[in-house]
């Protein structure tokens, strides 16, 4: 009897989740499609006009997967993140399939040359976070900050300095820059990436000269 009840409860949850997800997808189709289009382009699985069509197809696959496994969705969770997670998994699968077809597994360092030899995102972020000075302390006086920021252009330096001043908080940075938090974070992350790259180049040069 308890098994029957359990399975009935599971069916009820699944039905409720399906209804919830269906409504959410209907309301957010356009946004999801746009994001998936961007994901596909970033993953190198589509380009040009074909990306829109591929995004529609991917979204359809996501919908099918999501509704089929609706029981796994936690009602307290965020539906968009869950759906995008499914999309990311599908993209991952497609990338792997493509790699198998090409008889070669892609490595992160192949996809992003230099990623394996330079600082990881976490390391760089932590190093910058360590520079975030307590209130009252002059950042300019911090030699570590100056050394790090000297690697990038003035524009990037400004973004990074502001970010460091505000504990790398995107929302505060957005206020300073007068843009949306999303745009501020994109700028910050690009500046960070350029810093990583500059760092990598410098390290390489140092290695060569030592050698």
């Amino acid at each position, binding site marked *: 009897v308890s098994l029957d009840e359990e399975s009935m409860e599971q069916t009820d949850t699944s039905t409720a989740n399906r209804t919830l997800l269906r409504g959410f997808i209907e309301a957010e189709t356009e946004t999801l499609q746009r994001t998936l289009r961007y994901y596909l382009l970033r993953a190198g699985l589509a380009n040009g006009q074909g990306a829109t069509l591929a995004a529609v197809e991917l979204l359809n696959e996501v919908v099918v997967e999501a509704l089929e496994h609706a029981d796994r969705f936690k009602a307290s969770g*965020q539906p968009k993140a869950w759906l995008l997670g499914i999309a990311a998994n599908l993209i991952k699968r497609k990338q792997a399939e493509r790699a198998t077809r090409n008889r070669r597994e892609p490595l992160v360092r192949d996809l992003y040359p230099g990623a394996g030899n330079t600082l990881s995102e976490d390391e760089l972020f932590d190093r910058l976070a360590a520079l975030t000075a307590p209130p009252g302390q002059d950042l300019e006086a911090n030699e570590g900050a100056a050394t790090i920021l000297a690697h990038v252009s003035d524009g990037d330096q400004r973004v990074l300095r502001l970010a460091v001043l505000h504990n790398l908080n995107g929302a505060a940075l957005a206020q300073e820059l007068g843009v949306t938090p999303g745009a501020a974070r994109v700028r910050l992350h690009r500046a960070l990436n350029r810093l990583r790259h500059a760092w990598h180049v410098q390290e390489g040069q140092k290695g060569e000269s030592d050698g």
Partner: protein
Amino acid sequence: MDRREAEQTRQPARQLAREKTLYRYSSALERGDFEVVSSILREAEQDPPLERMILEMNEVYCAELEDRQSLATQVSPRHRWTSFPRLLRGSKKEKKMNELHSRRWLPSGDGLRNALIAGSVVLGVVLTFAIGWSLYAPSKRAGGETALTVDPWGLTRSDVGVSGDDADESLPHYTPAQTGAPPPAMPQVDEPSLAGLPQESERLIIRNGRISMSVRDTRAARVSVEAMVAEMAAEGAYVISSEEYGESDEGSPYITMSIRVPVSRFDEAMDRLAGLAVKVTARHESGQDVTEEYVDLEARLESLEAARQRLLEIMQETRTTKDLLQAEEQLTAREAEIESLKGRVQYLAQSAKLASIWIELQPYILSQPVGDRWLPAETARQALETLVDSLRGLGDFMLFFAIAVLPWMAALGLVVYGVVRFVLWRVRVSREKRAAEEQSPDPAT
């Protein structure tokens, strides 16, 4: 207080951790590493602020992408589509450039690219023509007016491992133009024997039986019934229920049972049950033909399965998410209906396979023991009970009479009394009158 402070300290740390995760997300996205993207999205599922931050960033990336593409659609002259003749002869600007660089013995980058494309196209056309001719020429050589054989699967002789003259020997083929003879008769295939098929479609009948009978010992009879069911158990027979009631020290109880037996042994079971009885008080057998319902259900199932398949195809072909959602909804409804119909079909098939029999076992009265005990106290108690019952009945009657009947009787008595008094008064008055007349003297005398 401490808790609040701890929470306040934790907030910026958590926010910093989110910013870091977000940076990892954007970097992973930029390099197309969806392993990391997927893991961060999993994290965001349970962290609404992180999800919001990710979505904001996605919006920025998408907007950037759209801006970039709208710029790209404003095609620069360098990337404008070049027509094929133009490609061959080169644009005016390219001509001018070529003139400027006429002393160079190697073509420029664009010229080389154009030359390569043009060369590829020409080579493609030539090759296509050559292949077409090579396929056409041998057939013409071999048969003069021989019709070209069409190979819908695109398999040539070489594809199936036969070529040249060998092919003619190993693959006999019919060519009307060569022989003028009628086509060879098709190999004789035996017609499927109709005798092997059922003349009439198999009927699906649910059989039910009910038997009430008197037996010497109801418990022994139940054991016999259970033994019979056990004997048929291999064919699916089983006891559904068994109930016993009215048990006393003096005799057997009443027993009712419900059993399922294979339909092929239904008659045998009924006869064997009747054989247990001293007297069969009721026997009823019925059959319900459900063939029509079964066939109808099967047809509906088939149609629903086809609809389901079609919906699955539509889901694969559909271009918009709205259509997909609608198709999925329809599919869910169809699947629920299919499950329900399957359940009914299964029930009918099962019911038709096993007949159900309801049995009532009553103790046979003559076989019950005769009571030989004298119980005077019981008799006195019963007599007293009867006396109390009769007194209670009398009291009830009196009460009822006094309330319901007596008022009517009193009223009626008064009326009768009045009438009687009136009649008596009239009689007395008339008598007195007559007496007075008799006593008075006659004036004539």
